[in-house]
């Protein structure tokens, strides 16, 4: 999930793609932090600068919707901060091969559900609702944005009122694909009975879903505010702590930061994308709030184009079968990587650990899957002399204009990203260094809403530029993430610019590693393969990773607020039942 820096796009959180991890920990039960008394806490004030527009996560168009929905709708289990399944949802326990919940051949998962759970309207929750959720979200006509987790799910059935069985075909080593995390919140079958298929498009339930979560919707004004009341039917009699929750949307990140750090007007301010130089002193001197910094797999990276973006190619422009005029030369790519000063970007723009830290890996989490090898790669070190030498040796000679050329081909780079002050500053740092080694760099910035779309010629998908920059992240199981650099996912006219391989990189050796990952159930072996895949992409300079960004987002919270335990793999609201003051 590529997280755009700018407005709109924050969309995506980690999680949930097609393939995840058989990571099953016998999870602690729902109560991680004991909460004194239900409803003792008054009002919890949450501020999002992007306002939720819908409260059914299956129709979500961004993190804001997923998060706002999570207070009400719960999945079977959540992803904890280590990328392990956590039984704080509707499942009584996490199924494993050992406890018999997971078939040895990975074709089915039997979920034991909590007993006695009620919907906020007082009706009992049963396995039928789990089946109903499957029927709703996996019907193609519903056009749910979460439908990707249905891939390979043959059926979801109710064995008895408290047991749901998910069957995969073919076998799915990542057997938590359906059921865990914010992609599979369970909706009430009865409420959605008239919202299946094409009727899902304008379903009133989306604005006021009945849920099993700790809170229920009182008032929802799309694009503005959600007011929640405590759900008296919540299964844990001591939770939640707050009587009401107000989730206000709109405005800008900077004043949201002020509201949590300077005036204490709100208890939680989401995604404070403010320049590090402004945010750091504000957070440091605050008596009311603190900044949440947790890391997962969010990486701001540079993509190198392997296809030819030249406009004169007409219909062939940027097609996967074209060749880039100079990036096909590994020495040029290596020189570019060596002239990349990620340390300065990290310290000047991300406050050295405040909102991000330098990295030379494209996969930074789970920890066991992060490569340690890249530390020793020469291309991961900022060295202008080495970069110059690399180009000299490869025969790219500097002309009178200080731009290198070979055989009439100049090293002219068009470098695009979204409109965002941090990104524009990053571009400036890159440009000054790259020009020192003989590249000519032209900068371009596109509004995020135009950049992250397959329909725009200025977009990341078309990639009609030489280098582009944005953030993306993987899942607890990184197979789906790495599939985004395999030959067959190359973006182009044939797939309506919807392929995830924007680089149009194609390397059969890399594809082989990814294919192995897709069938590997052993976590240690999977980690080895993931490290191998990471190292190929780095050494071959397909991407130049810059910054491991705080995940899911750099949020500000009131110092008084307890029980927050952010997971980079799930919605920040995944354990809101445990929050207290």
């Amino acid at each position, binding site marked *: 999930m590529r997280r755009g820096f700018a407005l*709109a796009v924050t*969309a995506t959180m980690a999680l949930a793609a*097609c393939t995840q991890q058989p990571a099953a920990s016998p999870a602690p039960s729902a109560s991680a932090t004991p909460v004194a008394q239900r409803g003792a806490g008054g009002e919890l004030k949450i501020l999002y600068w992007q*306002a939720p527009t*819908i409260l059914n996560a299956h129709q979500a168009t961004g993190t804001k919707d997923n998060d706002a929905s999570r207070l009400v709708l719960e999945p079977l289990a959540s992803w904890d901060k280590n990328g392990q399944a956590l039984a704080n949802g509707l499942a009584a326990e996490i199924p494993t091969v050992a406890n018999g919940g997971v078939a040895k051949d990975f074709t089915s998962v039997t979920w034991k559900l909590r007993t006695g759970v009620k919907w906020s309207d007082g009706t009992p929750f049963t396995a039928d609702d789990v089946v109903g959720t499957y029927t709703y979200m996996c019907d193609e006509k519903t056009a749910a944005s979460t439908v990707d987790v249905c891939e390979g799910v043959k059926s979801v059935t109710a064995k008895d009122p408290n047991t749901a069985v998910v069957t995969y075909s073919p076998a799915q080593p990542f057997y938590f694909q359906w059921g865990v995390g914010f992609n599979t919140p369970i909706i009430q079958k009865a409420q959605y009975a008239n919202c299946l298929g094409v009727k899902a498009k304008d379903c009133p339930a989306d604005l006021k879903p009945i849920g099993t979560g700790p809170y229920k919707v009182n008032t929802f004004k*799309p694009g503005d505010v959600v007011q929640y009341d405590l759900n008296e039917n919540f299964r844990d009699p001591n939770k939640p702590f707050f009587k009401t929750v107000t989730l206000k949307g709109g*405005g800008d990140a900077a004043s949201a930061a002020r509201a949590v750090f300077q005036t204490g007007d709100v208890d939680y301010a989401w995604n404070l994308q403010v320049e590090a130089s402004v945010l750091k002193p504000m957070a440091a001197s605050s008596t009311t709030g603190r900044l949440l910094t947790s890391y997962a797999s969010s990486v701001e990276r540079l993509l190198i184009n392997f296809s030819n973006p030249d406009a004169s190619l007409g219909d062939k422009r940027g097609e996967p079968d074209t060749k880039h005029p100079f990036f096909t030369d590994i020495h040029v790519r290596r020189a570019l990587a060596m002239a990349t000063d990620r340390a300065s970007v990290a310290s000047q723009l991300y406050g050295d650990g405040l909102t991000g830290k330098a990295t030379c890996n494209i996969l930074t989490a789970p920890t066991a899957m992060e490569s340690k090898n890249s530390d020793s790669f020469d291309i991961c070190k900022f060295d202008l002399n080495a970069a110059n030498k690399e180009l000299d040796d490869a025969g790219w000679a500097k002309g009178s204009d200080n731009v290198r050329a070979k055989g009439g081909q100049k090293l002219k780079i068009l470098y695009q990203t979204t409109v965002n002050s941090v990104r524009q500053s990053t571009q400036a740092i890159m440009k000054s260094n790259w020009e020192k080694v003989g590249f000519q760099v032209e900068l371009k910035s596109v509004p995020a809403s135009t*950049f992250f779309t*397959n329909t725009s010629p200025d977009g990341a998908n078309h990639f009609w530029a030489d280098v582009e920059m944005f953030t993306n992240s993987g899942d607890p199981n990184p197979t789906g*993430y790495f599939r985004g650099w395999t030959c067959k996912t190359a973006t182009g006219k044939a797939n309506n610019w919807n392929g995830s391989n924007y680089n149009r990189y194609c390397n059969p050796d890399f594809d082989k590693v990814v294919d192995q990952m897709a069938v590997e159930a052993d976590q240690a072996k999977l980690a080895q393969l993931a490290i191998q895949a990471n190292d190929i992409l780095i050494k071959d300079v397909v991407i130049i990773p810059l910054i491991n960004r705080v995940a899911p987002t750099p949020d500000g919270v009131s110092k008084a607020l307890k029980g927050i335990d952010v997971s980079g793999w799930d919605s920040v609201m995944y354990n809101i039942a445990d929050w207290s003051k």
Partner: protein
Amino acid sequence: MGRYIARRLLIAVPTLIVISFVIYAILALAPIDPLSQFGADPRVPAEVRERIRESLGLNQPWPIRYVKWMTSMFRGDFGVSFMSHSSVGDLIAQRLPNTLAVVGVAYVFGVLMGIPVGMISAIKRYSIFDHAATTVAFMGFSVPTFFTGLLLIIIFGIKLRWFPFIYSSTTQVHDLDSFVFQIRQSIMPITVLGLFNVATIARYVRSEMLEHLPLDYVRTARGKGLMERLVVLRHVLRNSLIPVVTLVALGVPTVFGGAIVTEQIFRVPGIGELLVTSISNGDIPVVATVVFIFAVLVVTFNLLADLLYAVLDPRIRYT
């Protein structure tokens, strides 16, 4: 007069149709995509996006979508928002009270303040009051609202903590406390917008008055021995107000349009804020409807202003 109104209304129909077509064409041809919200999120892959696009009806050619949209508009159905799946009419109905409470009040305030300020400035030309008013008006006119807005937030919201800077649209005024809260939370946005409105109108009134004061009919009125108060109020002001009325009438649709920047800064969920977020979300039905309603209001108030002109100025007769 009746024939004139009928003719103007008849002309309005093709005008609005052309406007609606232009609005829709621009939106359809602009590189905005309701699915761009997903970013490059791989959990929403290509086929899923195509399916969602199809479910939103975006796979049809835009002229067909335009005709469908227009015909349902005639039936009073504004369509369904791509983002919230709720009817555009409901969204606008939710936003309108906030816009009226802030932008509308600021406008009324601007008119009520602007006219006397401009009037006094003109009568007491070059007095201290005139200099002060002209300076303030000049500033209010030229300093952008995002600047004054942020300034007020930092001074009164953060340093002094007098007023909240996060507008709560769920406040219901039912007693004195909630009324006071409503005033406290709207005072900053109203000041920002009001300052601008006062400035615009005061400058206008002042220059109109100055134009009229030396005219012969004013001298005649004074010569008749009328009290100065009557001369100013009944003769000069009335005549000076004719163009001001037009200005005020034409400004009313902008109230409906909300204040894009100010609403965003103070988190007032008004029409302007709805418009700007819908544009960035690619929520075409909402954008098209809001802009179209705005166009209808502009056309209507244009007509109204012309009619008022005739009422105020007996020399003008429409046939």
